[in-house]
């Protein structure tokens, strides 16, 4: 099979694929190859295969290794950072890092205490701080260039050549699994606190007896139950949609460099440089706008978590 040209469709699909570890068609557990192989080693790689390792066929048990690695790494980094500041915290001579951490801490505390009415709940403060810091750190990974980490992971060669890492998506939030996991945790907490504060009967009566009275229970259920669950699902999907769209636009602008490279190889040097500069400008513009979106989405995730837990605690009469 001839060497496949780098065209933009395959480039986009290549960058949208996660590093999946799952069961291939012969039953053994391997990293997925998919069929989006763009690289010069393609022929040698495909001749020796008697199994297929398609990430779409791996089923429910497949793990996205890059999502797990990046989110655990960033969570550990955040925990270590705050722990190391708290260990050496001093009142009289605070370091700059301690000032920054105290500012973040105060910000979360005032934000939470404005919204969360019941006092004495020990979990809401750490939950809010974890939510905003972790989501913000994971979102910040979007500002790295699309090919940078795969380039490093492949041993400083191009990510379309075959290193040992075929796919690597740096942005864990652009995989639906990471925001869905966080929203699932929040959903479990909402159910737990609803039932604990209001009792099972109170919780069910809130779902079935509002807005109309008790003679319109089917209508109330149709109105309230989808609203209740749609709010929690929208928490995940809002974060996923914003960050996925942002990353998609970064990848699409990066496709301009493919065109610039083709022009360079065809010998039209001036046009190639021009498209390269246009690409740089567009990436910078979009990155500046994206910083606002990143911070805003992390803040909105935290605020909505606190608002939903507040609603789980309060009773309407």
């Amino acid at each position, binding site marked *: 099979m001839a060497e496949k040209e780098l065209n933009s469709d395959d480039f986009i*699909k290549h960058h949208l694929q996660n590093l999946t570890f799952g069961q291939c068609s012969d039953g053994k557990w391997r990293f997925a190859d998919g069929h989006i192989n763009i690289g010069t080693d393609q022929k040698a790689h495909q001749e020796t295969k008697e199994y297929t390792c398609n990430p779409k066929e791996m089923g429910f048990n497949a793990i996205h290794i890059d999502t797990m690695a990046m989110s655990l790494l960033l969570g550990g980094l955040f925990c270590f950072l705050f722990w190391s500041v708290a260990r050496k915290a001093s009142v009289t001579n605070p370091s700059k890092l301690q000032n920054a951490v105290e500012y973040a801490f105060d910000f979360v505390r005032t934000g939470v205490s404005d919204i969360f009415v019941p006092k004495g709940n020990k979990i809401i403060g750490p939950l809010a701080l974890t939510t905003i810091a972790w989501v913000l750190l994971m979102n910040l990974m979007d500002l790295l260039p699309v090919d940078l980490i795969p380039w490093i992971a492949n041993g400083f060669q191009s990510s379309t050549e075959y290193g040992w890492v075929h796919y690597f998506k740096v942005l864990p939030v652009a995989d639906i699994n990471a925001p869905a996991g966080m929203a699932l945790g929040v959903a479990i907490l909402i159910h737990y606190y609803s039932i604990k504060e209001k009792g099972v009967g109170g919780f069910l009566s809130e779902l079935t007896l509002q807005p109309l009275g008790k003679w319109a229970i089917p209508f109330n259920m149709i109105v309230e139950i989808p609203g209740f669950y749609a709010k929690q699902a929208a928490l995940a999907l*809002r974060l996923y*949609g*914003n960050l996925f769209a942002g990353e*998609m636009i970064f990848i699409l602008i990066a496709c301009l460099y493919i065109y610039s490279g083709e022009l360079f190889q065809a010998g039209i040097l001036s046009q190639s440089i021009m498209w390269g500069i246009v690409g740089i400008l567009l990436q910078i513009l979009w990155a500046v706008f994206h910083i606002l979106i990143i911070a805003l989405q992390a803040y909105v995730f935290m605020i909505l978590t606190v608002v939903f837990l507040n609603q789980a605690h309060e009773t309407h009469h």
Partner: protein
Amino acid sequence: MEDSLLKIAGAIMVGMGAIGGAIGVGVAASKYLEGIARQPELQGYLLGQFFIMMALVDALPIISLAFGLIQLFG
């Protein structure tokens, strides 16, 4: 044929999401400007609230944008 139907579907999703998002954020922004006109000293506070409301209003159009981009390119 199926491929082109997917692309048309992606285009419809992106387009209608853009319409809804633009109208929603426009209404919120007009209310913000009215609020500044009434009480100019609240401008900083209202700006923060406006950004929160914009993120909430923008959620569903961006969800449909994300799914539309998946149809178009994946």
